[in-house]
């Protein structure tokens, strides 16, 4: 029996055409363009990752519904801009009119996301906190809320993505190292970095930020010292929501066809990976992790020749980094960071 099977096995296993190829040529040619693109995506991941990292720092839990907070922001952007007649092609408006419209969309997205974040906290986390539930229970309510939001959107908007919106024609094009950088990339990266510096400074310098760090370090002692823990937790969710709303605007700029009921999920997973890569609970780590995940994914895509590879490469690098540095690149330190 075995003697029959083995030669059979050897003969019938076909030699596949190679499914993994390294296109170094393409990599060197596209190095700068993929770098700039990677940084753009990285900035978006980093903004979403901040939401994960802040909530993790304060509550020690993975807020799985954060991707839905983000997608709520995307819908906020979509509806605002649709109402303002942005369509497949951008309306012919003056510079300041476009900026004004985008700021309006940003404000709507931020409000939508922050509201959703507070709703998630109220529905999924607060009742469990009051009952002193085990940590895994929080994970499941997060998943439940995430499902409920996703399928509410599904039921309302259907399964297909929303029509793509064009935000603006590239206003200015820079030429760096022979590679074209359009104004969107500049706007996204600069705005994201400003937001992140603002968040970092807010947490380091403001009174509320001190409260957040205190709760992250030791909730009970912080409460004894007069910190209103519940208020701090809600504030943390609101900050995460605001950043997710901003990320939503940039995401719709970058991927206009990405507004879909489950469109936030994979991005959320990658943003969470970014937060972990930088060291979850560490605000600066989220920035570093986001940029790294964006860059590495894009390099992998160019090197291996298919956009499918983006996520695989990102996750493989994540695993490798975590094996060497189990606490992430910068370590987790929202509570430990010095004032």
């Amino acid at each position: 029996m075995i003697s029959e099977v083995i030669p059979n096995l050897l003969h019938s296993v076909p030699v596949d055409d190679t499914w993994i190829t390294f296109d170094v040529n393409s990599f060197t040619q596209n190095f700068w363009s993929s770098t700039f693109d990677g940084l753009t995506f990285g900035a978006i991941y980093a903004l979403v990752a901040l939401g994960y990292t802040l909530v993790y720092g304060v509550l020690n839990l993975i807020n799985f519904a954060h991707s839905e907070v983000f997608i709520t922001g995307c819908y906020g952007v979509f509806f605002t801009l649709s109402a303002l007649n942005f369509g497949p092609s951008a309306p012919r408006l003056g510079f300041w009119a476009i900026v004004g419209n985008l700021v309006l969309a940003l404000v709507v997205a931020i409000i939508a996301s922050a509201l959703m974040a507070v709703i998630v906290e109220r529905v999924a986390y607060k009742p469990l906190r009051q009952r002193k539930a085990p940590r895994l229970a929080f994970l499941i309510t997060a998943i439940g809320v995430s499902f409920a939001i996703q399928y509410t959107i599904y039921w309302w908007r259907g399964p297909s993505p929303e029509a793509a919106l064009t935000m603006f024609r590239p206003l200015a094009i820079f030429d760096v190292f022979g590679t074209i950088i359009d104004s969107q990339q500049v706007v996204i990266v600069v705005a994201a970095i400003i937001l992140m510096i603002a968040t970092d400074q807010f947490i380091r310098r403001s009174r509320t930020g001190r409260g957040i760090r205190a709760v992250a370090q030791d909730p009970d002692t912080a409460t004894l010292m007069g910190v209103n823990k519940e208020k701090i937790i809600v504030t943390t969710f609101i900050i995460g929501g605001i950043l997710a709303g901003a990320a939503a605007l940039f995401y719709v700029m970058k991927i206009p066809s990405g507004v879909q009921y489950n469109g936030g999920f994979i991005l959320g997973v990658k943003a969470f990976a970014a937060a972990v890569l930088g060291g979850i609970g560490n605000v600066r780590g989220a920035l570093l992790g986001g940029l790294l995940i964006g860059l590495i994914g894009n390099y992998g895509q160019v090197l291996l020749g298919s956009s499918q590879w983006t996520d695989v490469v990102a996750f493989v690098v994540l695993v490798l980094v975590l094996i060497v540095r189990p606490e992430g690149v910068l370590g987790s330190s929202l509570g430990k960071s010095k004032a």
Partner: protein
Amino acid sequence: MSTTDGPTLIPDDASAQEIADREAKMRQRKGWFPGLSDKWNALPRQTQWLILIVVVVIAYLLPILNPPLITTEPGNNWQIALAQMSVYALVAVGLNVVVGYAGLLDLGYVAFFALGSYTAAMFTSPDSPYVHIPYLWTLPLAMAVAMFFGVVLGVPTLRLRGDYLAIVTLGFGEIVRILATIIPAMKGQVGFQNVGHPPGTDSSGQPIFLNSSGTPWYWLTLTIIIVVLLAAGNLERSRVGRAWIAIREDEDAAEIMGVPTFKYKVWAFAIGASVGGLSGALFAGQVGFVNNQKFDIATSILFVAAVVMGGTGNKVGAILGGALVAYIPLRFTAIAEFKYLIFGAALVVIMIFRPGGLLPARQSLLAYGRLAYNKLKGAAGDIPASGKVVLEQGKGADNE
């Protein structure tokens, strides 16, 4: 209370009574059926077995009984629904070993499920150019393949704790899914049709195991679940199981007390993975079609939800959770647009009102034997030489 300064090692009657009262009150607050688990534990072994046999017989009769109200018809074929529920239950039993016993949060369990499915598909489907083997052979093969990858994933990553481990396993699940899309041999979205099934024909010459027939698959999976449960129960009570519980409760303490934590974590991962592979192969056989669409992260998270909703660390809870996770969307097909909405809301409501899951793990003294357990709980009187517990009325644990 005693007046001495130090802690009293031997509680006097009053404080013992106080402790017992507090325990009883806690139990009442915790359960829907207060004292049920104590009553169950106080029953003689023989009676327990008899009740279990009745439950198992009812479980086997479910596809024929087709109970009204519970049934998923007219929306879904009840027998096929049962087959799917049983596969999910088996998945939950396997994942319960990892999450429930060893306390390792594995968010990428779907990877092992996928590996099992692909093993079954690639060795039995006519679409596959590889050597073909009878379907039943793929079950142990799927277990072996999944176990191998469980070790491959476990050895480098199990140094990580908690959420870091969660994200790494999540990444692994996603990597397997994307590789199934990229690698030509796994045929991406085209997938494999006509996955094999167990042999056997009925009197009219029709094969017994068809994709359109749920009952035989349900019975097969149910039988496998019972076998796995017996094995898992034995593991739970063995040295390995005690090591797992120790790791779950406090990994550092376990390590210091001489438990080789890393080794047992890999064990848990490998055993859990093999059950995942087995259920994947059964799933592939029943559905008859495997492609890359069914193994996404959402499914993986559903598996974890099944275990936690049922009650981490409780075998019966895991089965219940797994079956429910499959059942709720099937039951509400009539209002298809809302079914996942209902499902999500159900998850939240269940966890808010039952934070420990539907059937919380018994915090029983696993380190002791059954007799010592009963004695400590006050259920047993004298233990005769025969080793049989004599229950005294009025002194039992059910006397509350």
